[in-house]
């Protein structure tokens, strides 16, 4: 995902702000990492450049 996606993303549970933690990126985008909601204490993983913003019960 591109970094500027952070401007429009929010926690799918509480709509609060997210904290980005990058573990791998290239010149174009973030490849892996997490988005963390401190209010819900929930991590949303970024895998192969795709943020998974599904609430845990839909994630499978």
């Amino acid at each position, binding site marked *: *995902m*591109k970094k500027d*996606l952070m401007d*429009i*993303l*929010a926690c*799918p549970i509480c*709509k609060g*702000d997210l904290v980005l933690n990058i573990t791998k990126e290239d010149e174009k985008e973030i490849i892996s990492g997490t988005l963390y909601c401190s209010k819900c204490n929930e991590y949303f993983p970024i895998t*192969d*450049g*795709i*943020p*998974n*913003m*599904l*609430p845990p019960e*839909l994630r499978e």
Partner: protein
Amino acid sequence: MVTITYRDADIELDENVYDPAEDSYLLADVAIDVAQDGMHVLEVGAGTGFVSAVLQTNVDVDLVATEISPFAAECAKRNSVEVIRADMFGCFGSDTKFDLILFNPPYLPTAEDEKIPGWLNYAFDGGIDGREAVDRFLEEFPPYLSDGGIILVLISSLTGIDKVKMHMQGRGLDVEVCNIDRDCFFEELIVLKGTFKASEQL
């Protein structure tokens, strides 16, 4: 891996994802007509990413897409679509606005015993009356559409075009029928274009 080319966009398909068909081509064509350079565009339920990929190849838009299926999200990503795994609008902050929102919903009337296992069911299953997904979309879109923004919704005659049209009008949209696909024998496909009048925003 099967790749198709449409309006200068190359789209890779995936066996676990609904293949682009007449509905996808129709929505892509109308989206290219309606979109303007610089617009912020959202496609809900991108599937292979066909509509988004064709649109961003032909118009200089700033596009993101949501998709619930992991297979479809990966396929859309391979097709250079900025995709987020999310349930419709679930991932967006409350002040996020788009100028154009595209939706090719699962619209086939589907009984319990007609459901198919796995993620592919999301591509077809419109609930008993075919309008479950489109009705939910119409309930949820208003906070995410800018003043004067446009939604394009693909609908089949199997889904009840008049009922969807009335629902859209009830959500503060001016509705027009954008295009009619004449090549389908078992159903009529149309794109409903809804324009948000700022003064009537909910």
